[in-house]
């Protein structure tokens, strides 16, 4: 099994959720994060002063998926989150040993 983590622009969350749902993903976990990357480094002006901006608000989406679906899930996310502008974020995938559904204690693919 795989854990797919996507760090995306906040206003794209709805699109990603919709795309995953349409693909057939039944669950995900979402949290707030701040991103540091190429997008950093732009300058803002506020109250007559300029300053560098470091950290930009992002949303982290975590999806557990079966081995075989992982590639497709990644594609779905990437497509839905893309704006083509710097700061669109990253998606990565990590191997998972086991997943358990707390409610029933089920393990593995049934737990998704």
């Amino acid at each position, binding site marked *: 099994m795989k854990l797919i983590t996507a760090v995306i*622009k*906040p*206003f794209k969350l*709805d699109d990603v959720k919709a795309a995953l749902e349409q693909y057939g993903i039944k669950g995900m976990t979402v949290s707030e994060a*701040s991103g540091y990357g*190429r*997008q950093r*480094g*732009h*300058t*803002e*002006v*506020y109250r*007559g*002063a*300029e*300053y560098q*901006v*470091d*950290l*930009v*608000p*992002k949303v982290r989406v975590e999806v557990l998926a079966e081995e075989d679906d992982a590639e497709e899930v990644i594609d779905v996310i990437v497509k839905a989150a893309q704006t083509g*502008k*710097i*700061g669109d974020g990253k998606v990565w995938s990590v191997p998972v040993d086991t997943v358990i559904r707390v409610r029933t204690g089920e393990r593995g693919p049934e737990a998704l």
Partner: protein
Amino acid sequence: MKIDTGTTAWMITATALVLLMTPGLAFFYGGMTRAKSVLNMMMMSFVSIITVSAAWVLYGHSLAFGTNGTEFLNKFFGGLDEVGLQSLVTTATKDDGTGMPSLVFSAFQLTFAIITVALISGAIADRAKFGAWVVFSVVWATLVYFPVAHWVWGGGWLAQLGIEDFAGGTVVHVNAGAAGLALAFVLGKRSGWRKDPMRPHNLTLVLLGVGLLWFGWFGFNAGSELAVDSTAGLAFMNTQLATALAAGAWIVVEKFRDGHSTTLGAASGAVAGLVAITPACGFVDPWAACALGILAGAVCAYAVGLKYKLGYDDSLDVVGVHLVGGALGAISLGLIAAYPLAETAQGTGLFYGGGFTQLGKQILGPVAVGLYSFIMAWIIGKIIDKTMGFRISQEDEVTGVDITTHAETGYDLGTIHSSGVASPNAPAVPAEAKKVDA
């Protein structure tokens, strides 16, 4: 006439109280939006203080309370005799026997104009161009508020007819509510409307707003007597009773309908009560204030659902609370008016033996003002929309009007960002930030 220090003391206080209502409204409205639009919502109220004050000193006071030479035109608007307010500086007191300086009267009336304009903005939360709102606020005040204030309080045609409006049910609430409805049509629905919950992001801010509104409203209602007498006391007590009972009625309706009484319900109910008692507070008995309050709370609790039926996105319920509540109060005077002002040809209500005449007038008032305001607001709004545009882009709306329009976010409470929030859509390449000199 000699200045009455007691009357003037109260009227200065009342004016400050009414001015405080606009920040109060900003918090009430601001708390009801989503976190990403709180600043823009509050700015629409605050900028109304700016634009209306500027218009007031230039010509607003004069249009509303001045006179032009012609008796006929005087029915519809004042003159330009008090432009710049300079004439009020020298004529120290109003010549109508109230015993207060003319500038105090003018300042008191200014605060009414401000909040009426600010009230409208609740209908267009999350999606209006700030510059468009600035323009709308001053044009609507000029073409609608100042004349309508003249109609009812400046000796215009509705005053001459004997319409009763103690503190502004028609001039303020019906007027603002109708304009809000028009703008809701002009701007259209928010992206995600009826799909996303769009619940209040900060209910402590909503309650703060209500607390300040309630407090300030005593200046609004009891101050509208323009004197310190037992009628002012009656207006005060009736305001308190109607407001409390309307809040109670609203949360009782909720309890039975939805299964729980909400904070937003108590807050909205209080405002509904304040609105409904506004035209009536100095004219009715305490029992009638209680009845009107209960009615207003219950009716408005249902009226805020109308928009889902009829399909307009009056975001913060300006129509359901102010148009409906204001009309309710104004019309009910045709039934329950017990102590009208004899000198302006007003009659007692049906229940006090006044017959149907006053009731008819009381229906005419809100209908005339509501229609005029709706049509004018729609026209002004459409012209703005066609020329400068009234609505922000969809991407800006989804991202949030605060960051996209004002380059700010309401809150930055975390440890990570505690040194500042960046725009989530910030440009990637080090922007050619304008060099700031000074």
